[in-house]
C-alpha cells in the first residue's frame, strides 16, 4: 500500500529522532554527575529524555504496524531482524520510562539506578541505530555503518517457533507483572 509506505517512512523518521534525543539526553544527564559543567542543565536534559522516551514508545509500534503493510516488506530475514530490533528498542525505551516514573528525577542521585537508566537509554539508542541501518539496507541497498568492518549485513536471523514465541510473550508478561508487584509489596511493607 502506497499510503502505508509513505506513512512508514514518516514514522521511522520520528522513531529515529525521538530515540536519538532520548539516548543522548539520558547519557548527558548521567554524565552530569561526573561533569560539573552539565550540572545546571541536568533537570532540562532529564525532562527532555523523559518526554522523548514517551514519544518513542508511541512511534515504535506505529512503525512496526506501518512496516508490516508497506511495500518494503519483503518477508526476508532482514525484515524479520527489523521487527526483532524494534522489539528490543521498545523494551529498553519502556524500561527507561518505567524507571523514570518509579523513581522520579531523583533516579539520577543513586549511582546504581542512574547507571541502569543510562544502560537502558544506550541500548535503546543502539537498537534504533541498527534499525536505521537495516532500513537503509532494505531501501538503498547500503548503510553508512557498512564502513565498520565488523558491521553485520543482517541477512540471517534467529527464528523462534511461533508457539514458543507465544510462551515467551506470556513469560515476559508474568515477569513484568511480578517485577512491578514486588515493588508495590515493598511499598505496603513500608507503609
Amino acid at each position: 500500500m502506497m499510503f502505508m509506505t509513505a506513512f512508514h517512512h514518516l514514522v521511522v523518521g520520528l522513531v529515529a529522532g525521538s530515540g536519538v534525543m532520548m539516548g543522548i539526553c539520558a547519557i548527558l544527564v548521567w554524565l552530569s554527575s561526573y561533569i560539573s559543567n552539565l550540572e545546571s542543565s541536568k533537570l532540562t536534559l532529564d525532562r527532555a529524555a523523559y518526554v522523548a522516551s514517551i514519544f518513542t514508545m508511541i512511534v515504535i509500534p506505529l512503525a512496526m504496524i506501518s512496516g508490516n503493510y508497506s511495500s518494503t516488506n519483503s518477508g526476508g530475514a532482514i525484515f524479520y531482524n527489523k521487527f526483532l530490533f524494534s522489539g528490543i528498542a521498545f523494551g529498553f525505551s519502556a524500561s527507561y520510562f518505567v524507571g523514570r516514573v518509579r523513581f522520579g528525577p531523583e533516579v539520577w542521585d543513586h549511582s546504581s539506578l542512574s547507571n541502569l537508566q543510562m544502560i537502558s537509554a544506550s541500548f535503546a539508542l543502539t537498537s534504533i541505530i541498527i534499525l536505521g541501518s537495516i532500513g537503509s539496507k532494505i531501501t538503498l541497498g547500503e548503510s553508512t555503518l557498512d564502513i565498520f568492518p565488523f558491521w553485520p549485513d543482517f541477512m540471517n536471523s534467529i527464528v523462534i517457533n511461533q508457539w514458543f514465541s507465544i510462551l515467551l510473550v506470556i513469560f515476559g508478561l508474568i515477569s513484568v507483572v511480578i517485577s512491578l508487584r514486588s515493588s508495590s509489596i515493598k511499598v505496603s511493607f513500608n507503609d
Partner: protein
Amino acid sequence: MKSRIITLSAILVLLLATSSGVANPGGKGDSDRDYTCGGSCHGDPSLSSTSSAIIDVEMSSTAYSGTATEISVSISNLDTSDNGLVGIFLLSSKNGNNDHPEDYGWTIIQDPNGGLSNYVEVVSSDNRASVSWVLLAPDDLGPKEIYVSIHHGSYYNHNNKAFIGETEGITVNIEPIPENYPTLAEGWTSPEERISGDSSKIKIRTVNTESLTVYWRLSGETRSHEATVEMVADQEWEVSLPATLGDTRIEYQMVASMGDFSNAMPWLSMGTSEPYFDGTSLGANLQSISFALIILGFMVSLQSWFAPRGVDKIIDNTAEVEKSIIANQESSVTELDDEYWSRLIKSEENPGWLWDPMENEWVADPAVSLRGDE
C-alpha cells in the same frame, strides 16, 4: 431545465472522478506478452509514438531443428525516462495475439534476466541496452520469422506517451538436424538461479553426446574456466559450478561432442538468490513483543534490586521526616532559649551585661548590643 442541470452535473462529476491514466512508468516486470501487450493502450496511436532507438539483432540465419541458438539484441540511441527502463519483446508475429515464440515452436531456454519470458525489462546505460535470448529451434523445418519490439518512456514526455520501436522479421531457416548431432535434450531448461552459497551440482540432459565440456565465468569476466563434469546416466550429466554469493551471476557454456564433431552452445547464465527463510510476519511480531516484554521485566527487576530501601518515589518520606525533625529541633531550641533568658539578671553597675546565677557568668545583653548596632 432542472433535469438538464442534474444530468450535466452528473456527467461533470463522473468526468472529474476519473483518474488521469498513464502507462506503467515503473514497468510491469518480466512475463510472457504479445505484441504491444496484446492490444493494450500502447497500441493506441494517440497514446504512443515511434521510438528513436536503433535496434540491431544478431542471429544465425540457419538453425538445426531442436538445437540451441542465440539471438542477441543491441539497442542504441535510446531516449528513456529518468529510470532508464526499457521493455523488450521477442516475438514470432505482430498480430497482437499468439505472438509468443513458443506459439511457433520455439522454446526459450533462457531470457536475458535468467528467466523464461519473451518480454523482459532492463535498465539502459548510456542510452544503450544489450540483451540475448537462448532458444531451442522449432521442430518444424523451413523459414521462421523472429521480431524484436521495444517500448519505453522518455525524459521529456509531457503527454505520457509510450515510445514503441520494432524490427522487421528476421528470417531463420530451420534445417533438419544432422544425424547424431550432439545437443541438449528436448525440454531441458537452464536453472534460473541458485541459493547463495549453494554448490550443488547442475543436471544436464543431452542427446547424441559422447562427452560434455562445460566452461564457466562470472558475469562481466572474459576469462573462462573449465568445470568438472560427471556422467551419472546415459545422456545425463552433473556439472560442478562454484557457489556464488550476493547478487553474482555465473555464466556457463556447454560443448557437446560426438566423435570429432563438437557443438559449442550459447552462454547461459544463472543468478544467485537469497537463502530460503521460513520466518513469518506473525512470528516476527510475536518474537518482537516477547523480546520487549522480557527486556522490560528484566530491567524492572534490576531497578527493584538496585533501588535503596525506601527510595521508591511513592514511599519516600525522607523529606517529610527531615522537616519534622528540624521543626522539633527549632521548637525545643526556642523553649530552651526562653528558659535561659528569663533567669538572667540585669545589672545597673554593668550596663549591657546580664548575670547568669546558674553558670555564675556575665552574658552580653542582646537588646543593648542590637541598639548599639543601630
